[in-house]
C-alpha cells in the first residue's frame, strides 16, 4: 500500500505562522491538523483539512522539555477525532531548513500520544510531524495500522505545488544509447532552464491525469511530453474516427483504419519522446479509473459536457487534486459565429467552477434538455491548440512557480474571432474567497451522517 500526505499550502502557511509565535515560557508551540483519508485499492492519501491552534493556557511550565501541553489539549484533539470522524496530526516547528530532526523527547513522548489517538479512532490517520521552514518530517500511521510510517511523501497543494520525490520512481533503467540521450546528462532541456533548477526533477516526479484524449487532450499530452513530464494517467473510452482527424494531433489515417483508441495514440506520442514513460492507459470512462486518477498531482479535463466537468471537479476536490479544465464551443450569434473557450484552474479550497460562474444550474439543465441530440459539436484544431497551450502554461507555472504569479485560481476566456485570451472579469471579485460548494472539510472519502 502506497501512502502519501497532502496539505493545502494555505493551511500549511497558517500553521507555520501560528507555530512561529513566541510563547511566554514555552520554547515551542504546538498545533494539530485534522486529517481525513482517501482510500483506494493501492493507495491511501491522508489529507490535512483543518488546523487547530492551541491557546496559551494549554501550555504547562516545565524546565526539562521545550514544550509541554496539558491533558485538556489532548482531550480536545481526542474529542475532534470522536465527534468529527477525523484523525489528528500533532505538529510543532523546529526552525531551520531541510528535514527537521526529532529530539529525544519527541521520540519518547509523541508516539505515545499518537497511540492514544489511535485508541479513539484507528481507522483515521493519527500521528505527529515536525516542520522546518521548507520541509517536514512525518510519523503517521497508515489507517488501520498501529505503527507509524516515517517519511511519508508530502504534497503541498497550492501555488506552487510541492511534490516530494516519488518512492516508486523508476530507477535501474537498462543502460542504452536511448537512455543516455533521454537522461539528464544530455542538453535536452537547456532551452527551458529558466523554469528553475528543479524543473526537470519536478517534471519527472509529477503524475498528470488527462481525461479526454481527443482534440484537447492530444495537444496537452504532446506538449507535456516535450516538457519532460513522464508519468501519466490517460482516460478515454473512444476509438479514433475520421471525424476526429481534423483536430486530434498525431492521429493518422492508419489509426482510423485500425480503430485505435485515442489513449493509445497519445501514449505512442509520449513514448516516442520518453521510451521509459510511466503511462496508465484506461480505454474507459474516467469513472472506472478513479484509483489511478487519485494518485495524480494534477488532472486535466478535456471533456465534452458541463455535467462531466462538474463530476470530474468534484472528484478532484475530494482528493485535493488541482483540476485544469479546457473546453471550446462554437456559438451562433445570429449574423456570424464565434469560437468561445475557457481554461480554468480549480484549486482545492479556492473558488470552484460554480463559484466562478462557469457552471450553473441553467447550463446544466440546458445540456440535460439536449440529451440525445444527434451530431457532434463543432471543434477545430487551432482554437484547441491555443487553449491547450494556455492550459499547459498554467500547469507548468503551477508545478515550477517560475513566473512567481502566485495565481492559484485562474479563469481565462478565449475568443476565436480576434484570437484573444483574457481573464474572466468575475474572478477578481471571488478569488480571495473560500469555496462554499467544496469546503476542505469534505475532502477524503465521503462521510455519511446517519439520519
Amino acid at each position: 500500500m502506497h501512502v502519501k500526505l497532502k496539505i493545502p499550502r494555505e493551511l500549511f502557511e497558517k500553521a507555520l505562522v501560528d507555530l512561529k509565535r513566541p510563547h511566554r515560557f514555552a520554547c515551542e508551540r504546538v498545533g494539530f491538523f485534522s486529517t481525513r483519508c482517501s482510500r483506494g485499492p493501492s493507495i491511501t492519501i491522508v489529507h490535512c483539512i483543518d488546523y487547530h491552534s492551541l491557546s496559551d493556557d494549554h501550555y504547562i511550565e516545565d524546565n526539562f522539555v521545550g514544550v509541554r501541553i496539558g491533558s485538556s489539549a489532548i482531550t480536545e484533539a481526542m474529542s475532534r477525532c470522536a465527534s468529527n470522524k477525523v484523525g489528528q496530526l500533532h505538529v510543532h516547528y523546529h526552525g531551520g531548513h531541510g528535514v527537521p530532526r526529532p529530539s529525544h523527547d519527541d521520540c519518547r513522548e509523541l508516539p505515545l500520544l499518537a497511540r492514544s489517538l489511535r485508541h479513539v479512532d484507528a481507522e483515521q490517520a493519527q500521528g505527529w510531524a515536525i516542520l522546518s521552514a521548507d520541509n517536514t518530517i512525518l510519523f503517521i500511521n497508515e489507517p488501520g495500522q498501529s505503527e507509524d510510517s516515517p517519511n511519508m511523501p508530502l504534497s503541498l497543494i497550492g501555488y506552487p505545488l510541492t511534490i516530494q520525490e516519488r518512492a516508486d520512481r523508476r530507477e535501474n533503467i537498462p543502460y542504452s544509447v536511448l537512455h543516455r540521450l533521454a537522461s539528464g546528462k544530455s542538453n535536452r532541456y537547456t532551452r527551458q532552464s529558466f523554469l528553475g533548477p528543479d524543473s526537470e526533477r519536478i517534471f519527472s516526479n509529477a503524475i498528470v491525469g488527462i481525461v479526454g484524449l481527443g482534440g484537447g487532450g492530444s495537444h496537452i499530452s504532446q506538449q507535456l511530453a516535450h516538457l519532460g513530464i513522464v508519468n501519466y494517467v490517460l482516460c478515454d473510452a473512444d476509438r479514433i474516427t475520421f471525424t476526429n482527424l481534423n483536430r486530434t494531433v498525431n492521429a493518422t489515417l492508419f489509426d482510423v483504419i485500425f480503430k485505435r483508441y485515442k489513449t493509445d495514440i497519445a501514449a505512442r506520442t509520449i513514448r516516442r519522446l520518453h521510451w521509459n514513460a510511466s503511462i496508465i492507459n484506461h480505454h474507459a470512462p474516467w469513472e472506472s479509473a478513479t484509483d489511478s486518477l487519485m494518485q495524480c498531482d494534477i488532472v486535466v479535463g478535456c471533456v465534452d459536457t458541463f455535467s462531466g466537468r462538474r463530476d470530474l471537479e468534484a472528484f478532484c476536490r475530494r482528493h485535493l487534486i488541482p483540476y485544469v479544465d479546457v473546453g471550446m464551443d462554437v456559438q451562433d450569434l445570429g449574423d456570424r459565429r464565434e469560437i468561445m473557450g475557457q481554461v480554468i484552474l480549480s484549486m482545492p479550497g479556492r473558488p470552484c467552477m460554480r463559484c466562478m460562474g462557469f457552471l450553473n444550474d441553467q447550463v446544466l439543465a440546458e445540456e440535460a434538455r439536449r440529451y440525445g441530440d444527434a451530431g457532434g459539436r463543432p471543434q477545430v484544431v487551432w482554437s484547441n491548440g491555443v487553449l491547450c497551450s494556455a492550459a499547459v502554461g498554467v500547469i507548468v507555472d503551477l508545478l515550477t512557480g517560475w513566473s512567481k504569479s502566485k495565481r492559484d485560481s485562474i479563469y481565462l476566456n478565449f475568443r476565436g474571432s480576434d484570437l484573444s485570451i483574457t481573464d474572466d472579469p468575475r474572478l477578481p471579485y471571488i478569488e480571495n474567497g473560500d469555496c462554499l460548494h467544496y469546503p476542505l472539510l469534505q475532502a477524503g472519502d465521503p462521510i455519511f451522517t446517519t439520519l
Partner: protein
Amino acid sequence: MAFAEDEINELKQSFAHLATASEGGTEFILIPSLTLPEGCKPQKVDALFCPTPRDGYISRLFLSQKVDHQGPGKNWNADGVTILGRQWWAVSWNAIPPNAPPSSTQRLAAILARQVEAFRCT
C-alpha cells in the same frame, strides 16, 4: 442538515438506515436496499436521492445499477456518474413532470414515492 426534521422522520418510517452527505453544495440522501416496484430487476438496489433540482430535473433518484423496469423510457443519461465516491445511474426521462409543483413545496416522502412509482407505469 438541509432537510426539515419532520420530513426526515416521515422518510425514516419507510426506510431504515438513511444517511446524508453533501457534495458540490448539493445534499443527498443515501437509501440502502431501496425496494423498487414489482417487475423491476433487480428489485432491491441502493439509491441516492437528490430531492432538489439537478441537471434540469426537479429531483433525481440515482440507483447503484441499471435495472430492467416498466417505466416510460429505457434511456439512462446518468450512466455510471461518480457522486460521493461511488458510481450511480439515473433514467433520462422525467419521473416527475417539469410542470409539477416545485420540489420545495413537496414533502420528501412524496417526491421519493413519485420517483419510485415511475418505474412501474408505462
